[in-house]
């Protein structure tokens, strides 16, 4: 058993309104960042967990996303990285 650090991105599904992203994009524009086209705001979750292999750790965190971390009705998730704490 070793300890792994798995990081996950959870973002609003495409087609689903992201009012927060909108507000941030507007604010960036009014701060003069005219080059900004679009902003989406999601969550970045870092899970430290014990597992035999990196694959097993990733597999477990995927299950956690499906059951708890992400809301499949309105969010998509992806495993961003698997490494060591």
């Amino acid at each position: 058993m070793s300890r792994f650090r798995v990081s996950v991105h959870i973002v609003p599904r495409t087609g689903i309104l992201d009012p927060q992203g909108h507000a941030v994009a507007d604010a960036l524009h009014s701060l003069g960042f005219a080059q900004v086209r679009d902003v989406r705001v999601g969550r970045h979750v870092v899970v430290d967990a014990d597992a035999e292999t990196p694959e097993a750790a990733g597999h477990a965190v995927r299950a956690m996303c499906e059951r708890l971390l992400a809301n499949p009705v309105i969010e998509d998730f992806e495993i961003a990285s698997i490494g060591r704490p």
Partner: protein
Amino acid sequence: MRFGIVTFPGSNSDIDAYQTVVDGIGEEAVMLWHKGHDLGGADVLILPGGFAYGDYLRAGAIARFSPIMREVRAFADGGGRVLAICNGFQIACEAGLLPGALVRNAGLKFLGRSVRVRVESTGTAFTNAYAPGQVLRLPIAHGEGRFVADQQVIEELEGEGRVVMRYVDAAGDPAPEGNPNGSMHNIAGIINAAGNVFGLMPHPERAADALLGAPDGLPMFESLVARVAA
């Protein structure tokens, strides 16, 4: 005396502040639009409660860039008194008018209820009408009210007597049970080093009419009138 109340998009307790100034203490109030650059000749500014810009990203993060904040800062730099309530407190911290930050309540839930706070300092322009150590009942209504700051800032605040209000329990002690949101040192309200910008999470302006309960917030407004007029 004239109070200027800033309306950001998403402010909602601006109306409470207005009513308290006009009906509660019979003073003048002007509403100041966030896009403007004119403080309307106000003697005191109120940054009111609400959800400016929906509190998206972080409470107060976007509002601090509103055009009028330039004038608010200049007013404060010149010694003008600013009362920052709830969302106003969050904005003031984001804008650097006050130290520290207000983050998600420790219990992760929005809290809408009445709390007890103790007046820790009556030497300020905002609290001179209270008795030292007086315990007030004030409503809170916030999701991000947990005051945090690094150790040095906390020591400075405590050392300089700038923690003006603290959450307390039924016995009047700043115990964990009296702390609704997990704020460090049970901090409910702090003042800046110059003593002219006061931020607090509870809503004194919603506790200013005996019909609604103990009018424990009213003396805060009376303090300001007494001090500024003097």
